[in-house]
């Protein structure tokens, strides 16, 4: 035990007293462990960022596409399914073809422009995550009572020079006068609707008839989107469910696993390459160091150091250098992860067990890389070494 303590003290002295050699030798491990820690940190941070990007709205929204015969009664059946929070009917009037829109009840108003028209049932408005900047949404009653109302997207309002729905300004769409009840500022889904006019189904029928294919937007509880995507077509069109197609969000679990798998592969490749570089650097520099220290090794042998003690000293020095490299590499890796994650607006996430273990990885690299030079050093005869 005292022998090991003495050898440790000698190894520490050698490492501390020759800082240039130590740092050169540690450089490879710094790179290796730094790469290992950074890639791991980035994997964790990126995975976390990927998870965040799967926001609740996207992960819980299912879009169905079906024929023009789909009605609000069909949507009501869908809305009764367990797991559906809300559902609404949406379609692009004249397939999003722009129609002339003028300010005022007359088609020859002061400001005229071409805008797309989107039909939406009142229940579709919350389903697309619409947010008002002015006024109110139209409700089911507006459709039932054939009220000629409309919502303007913020882009369309800006084009028409309408900044507020206060006083219910009138617009003329394709020759039909409509009252603007609100202005929609944002929509997480259907963002193109912000560039045009949003009307209830009845108004859409008046403008273009009921010939455009329908879409149904359904909001589900978290985790139900896949199931609703499978059950929805039969609810919307029980007789010809094949006419209805469902577009479900990617399964977050699968997607996350795929991203993590890709990043893990990258991690493993980079880490192994880094560790390989570290291993070779320590081995090469230790071999060079042993060659330079032949006379020292010869002297140690002459004064009574056994072969094992020489080997142990070389391995302990390499392990010490590996540990130093591991600590420096881990520190650099943590800082690099924090910097890169911060730059990408990710939350830096690191596996603490791995961070704590990284310096010992450096020790392992040092011990492995130092073993061959140590064996070579131990085989040097004192006579040959002292002649060098």
């Amino acid at each position, binding site marked *: 035990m*005292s*022998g090991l303590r*003495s050898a440790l003290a*000698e190894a520490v*002295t*050698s490492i501390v*007293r*020759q800082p240039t050699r130590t740092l050169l030798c540690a450089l490879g491990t710094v790179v290796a462990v730094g790469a290992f820690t950074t890639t791991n940190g980035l994997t964790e941070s990126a995975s976390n960022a990927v998870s965040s990007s799967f926001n609740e709205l996207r992960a819980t929204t299912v879009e169905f596409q079906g024929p023009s015969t789909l009605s609000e009664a069909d949507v009501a059946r869908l809305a009764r399914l367990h797991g559906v929070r809300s559902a609404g009917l949406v379609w692009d009037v004249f397939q999003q073809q722009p129609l002339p829109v003028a300010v005022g009840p007359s088609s020859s108003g002061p400001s005229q422009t071409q805008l797309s028209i989107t039909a939406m049932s009142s229940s579709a408005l919350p389903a697309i995550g619409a947010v008002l900047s002015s006024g109110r949404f139209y409700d089911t009653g507006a459709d039932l009572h054939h009220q000629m109302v409309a919502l303007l997207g913020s882009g369309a309002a800006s084009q028409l020079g309408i900044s507020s729905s206060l006083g219910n300004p009138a617009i003329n769409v394709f020759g039909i006068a409509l009252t603007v009840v609100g202005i929609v500022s944002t929509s997480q889904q259907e963002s193109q609707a912000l560039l045009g006019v949003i009307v209830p189904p009845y108004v859409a029928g008046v403008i273009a008839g009921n010939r455009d294919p329908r879409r149904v937007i359904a909001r589900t509880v978290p985790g139900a989107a896949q199931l609703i995507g499978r059950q929805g077509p039969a609810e919307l069109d029980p007789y010809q469910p094949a006419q209805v197609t469902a577009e479900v969000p990617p399964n977050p679990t699968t997607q996350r696993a795929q991203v993590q798998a890709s990043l893990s592969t990258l991690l493993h490749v980079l880490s192994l390459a880094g560790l390989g570089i570290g291993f070779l650097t320590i081995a090469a520099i230790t071999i060079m160091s042993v060659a330079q220290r032949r*006379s*020292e090794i*010869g*002297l*140690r*042998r*002459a*004064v*009574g*150091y*056994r*072969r094992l*003690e020489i080997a142990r000293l070389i391995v302990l020095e390499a392990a010490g250098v590996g540990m130093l490299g591991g600590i420096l590499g881990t520190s650099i890796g943590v800082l690099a992860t924090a910097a890169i994650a911060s730059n990408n607006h990710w939350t830096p996430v690191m596996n603490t067990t791995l961070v704590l273990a990284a310096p010992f990885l450096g020790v392992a690299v040092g011990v492995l890389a130092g073993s061959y030079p140590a064996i070579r050093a131990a085989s040097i*005869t*004192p*006579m040959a070494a*002292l*002649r060098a």
Partner: protein
Amino acid sequence: MSAARKPALQELLTLTGVGRTYPGSPPVHALRDATFSVGAGEVLGIVGRSGSGKSTLLNVLGLLDLPTSGDYRVDGQRVGSLSDREQTALRARFFGFVFQQSFLLGSLSAQENVELGLRPRRLRTGERRERAIEALAQVGLSHRRRFLPGEMSGGECQRVAIARALAQQPGVLLCDEPTGNLDERTSSEVLQTLTDNQAPDVAVVIVTHDMGIARTLPRLLSVRDGAVSEGAGEFLDAETLPGGGQP
């Protein structure tokens, strides 16, 4: 120079027909049929031209190299029957070395260099330090004990190397051209250090090509083409022998 020996001395090293042949084509017989002994407290000089085999003889004596023939006993133990580990232990316990180069480690102070020679002894740190300080005092370098080799002169470095050997308290002190790299004045000082600090029961063997130094030694062996003979022989009247600079 007298080759007479004191018969009462305890024999520390005994060589009987010892030879060392290096394999090759043809093989090199660096040492042939050496038969002599070294007693406790003796001071012995070994002289010879370059390549004559005197350093081989010193290496064999100090267990840095092994004989290929004959019988060599150290303190009564037959060297040929010892394992590598036992030879290393015997070398650590019984021999102190002073080489032509001081072989001090540049990153260690004078005291730490002296302590290096004691590490295989498994001494307590305090005892190791005391013995190193004492050995440095013996060679007059107490005031330099914290100096690095690069901060000392060549003579001082060689005296640190002597202190390293003395601190080991060896039975035999083996010196291979200990003054080979030093000027005349420093050589005398180093030689004085060696002989002045010789404990009564410690044998000192000095390999030298400097006949001025050799003539001051009480017993001489001369080596010629690997053959060892008592006395300075043909080298007696020479000032220095050619090519003795390298061990």
